[in-house]
């Protein structure tokens, strides 16, 4: 069988259920692949792992991938299992945030490490400075969890629909206590969890063929996971070697993730891509990318895989 190494963007959780299901159900094996799934973590930059040759293919958000491409690391999107963005800003009502106009003068928790790009584009679209002060917002580098919100250190924190939001709820705040701003609803959604490889490796037909089989099996895994969320969550739990995930949380996460993958058959939607690029280009004085990227995606793999 051919070896493929996949680097995830984050720790083992239902966000990556499709890949674990494909492996567990033998979809990869059917395609003659031997896939190693490497979990990520707070200090793992999938882009860097890809550059270092530690993985053949990585799960990454498009803003980070495009930024890396501009830095000279030629990453190419070969598939896009996530159709919509799960990112949102979750705010406390008692902090006085009802609409985007209320952001000014507040403290907002933001993820960095390559995940800050969507937020920065959004703020520049709203024309709000991120340097603090009366008319700007004070940005906190949000750690791994939602503590700043619970402890009133921030008015809003970044959350994913499928993960951190539920941690807020679990902690005892109710949806009525909260106002959420989904990036999708604000028209600033950028593409998340796509599959990326290095451009020059695609010239090798053997590698291309491997990726075709990989994407085909992965998408099969995703569709299976969407249809059998509880079983998928169980598979994820089995693969979590830290033993820290709970069944309840993973099942709920699988349910939410299924909503995001629902609209995608794996092929990148050009319109979504354009929207993402425009959003990143419009980043005011310090845009995430400065020029229209070229060759940052390809349909060849999905075309072969899905037909």
């Amino acid at each position, binding site marked *: 069988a051919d070896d493929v190494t996949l680097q*995830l963007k984050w*720790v083992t959780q239902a966000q990556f259920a499709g890949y674990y299901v494909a492996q567990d159900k033998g979809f990869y094996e059917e395609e003659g692949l031997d896939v190693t799934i*490497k*979990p*990520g*973590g*707070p*200090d*793992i*930059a999938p882009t*860097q*792992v890809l550059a*270092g*040759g*530690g993985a053949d293919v990585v799960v990454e958000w498009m803003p980070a991938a495009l930024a890396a491409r501009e830095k000279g690391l030629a990453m190419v999107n070969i598939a896009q299992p996530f159709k919509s963005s799960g990112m949102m800003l979750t705010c406390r009502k*008692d902090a006085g945030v009802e609409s985007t106009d209320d952001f000014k003068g507040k403290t907002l928790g933001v993820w960095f490490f390559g995940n800050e790009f969507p937020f920065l584009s959004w703020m520049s679209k709203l024309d709000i400075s991120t340097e603090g002060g009366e008319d700007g917002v004070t940005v906190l580098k949000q*750690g*791994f*969890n*939602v*503590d700043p919100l*619970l*402890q*009133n250190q921030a008015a809003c924190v970044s959350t994913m629909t499928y993960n951190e939001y539920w*941690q807020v709820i*679990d*902690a*005892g*705040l*109710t949806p009525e*206590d909260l106002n959420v701003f989904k990036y999708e609803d604000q028209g600033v959604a950028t593409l998340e969890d796509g599959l990326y490889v290095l451009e020059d490796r695609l010239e090798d037909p053997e590698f291309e063929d491997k990726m075709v089989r990989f994407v085909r099996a992965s998408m099969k895994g995703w569709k299976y996971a969407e249809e059998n969320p509880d079983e998928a969550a169980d598979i994820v739990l089995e693969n*979590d*070697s*830290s*033993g*820290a*995930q709970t069944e309840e*949380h993973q099942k709920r996460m699988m349910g939410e993730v299924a909503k995001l993958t629902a609209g995608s058959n794996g092929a990148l939607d050009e319109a979504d891509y354009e929207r993402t690029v425009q959003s990143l280009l419009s980043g005011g004085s310090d845009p995430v990318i400065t020029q229209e990227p070229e060759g940052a995606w390809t349909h060849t793999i999905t075309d072969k895989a899905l037909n």
Partner: protein
Amino acid sequence: MRRSVVPVLAVLGFLLLFWYAAAVWLNAPWAYDKATRSGAVLDARSLVLDTWTQDKPKLPAPHQVGAELWATVVQKNITSKRSLVYHSWVTLSATLLGFALGTGLGVLLAVGIVFNRTMDMSVMPWVIASQTIPILAIAPMIIVVLNAVGISGLLPKAMISMYLSFFPVVVGMVKGLRSPDAMQLDQMRTWHASKAQSFWKLRLPASMPYFFTSLKIAMAASLVGAIIGELPTGAVAGLGARLLAGSYYGQTIQIWSALIMAAVLAAAMVGSIGLIQRVTLKRMGMAG
């Protein structure tokens, strides 16, 4: 030894009291927060009770940590991923490997520094400077680079352990290998002993007390290294992963139990080095 039992118990008792009090103090805001949102009124009794039983407290009460430890150490099968014993073992294996590598590297460097003037003059300042580099910053890079050349699993973590643990060994062993006084070295000269002979018969035995002291420090540093190494390896397994996962999900009880487990591990390993030290030095007649 026995004389310290009462004072230690007293101090522990005081710590425990302080801990409970701090739990009330730190967790009270959240209790009030919940109460105001639900419109309830908190009396003193229910406040204290609430602060000691929260799910994700700012500071878990000792009994909460105790219960978690009991559940994850004793009640879980030790091969289960939810057993702290399993995770301790993962961390311990990286720690021990890193410790062995670090000790080896440290001793080699020390021997080089003591026997070679060029090394003595040029390397030592850089050894010190190397320790001012924030390891957590380069740990992910080390792991990525090692991954790129196909090394993964135990070794990358052990390398970070090694990086932290070789330093005390170099410093201690340089001191130790230089501890024979001029007279003892002159003695060797009058007997026309070779360099190797004075190393094996004089410098090495003379350095033993320093060696063990540095081993203890190195062991503690090595554990810290293994834990740091576990943070960016994707939080796969080990006490570091438990810390991280706990932190990621705001599970403070889990963080604290992992922390305490780590301290127990460190104390046990440092303690066993102390034991070996006592036995060895006694047999060498240096216990005086």
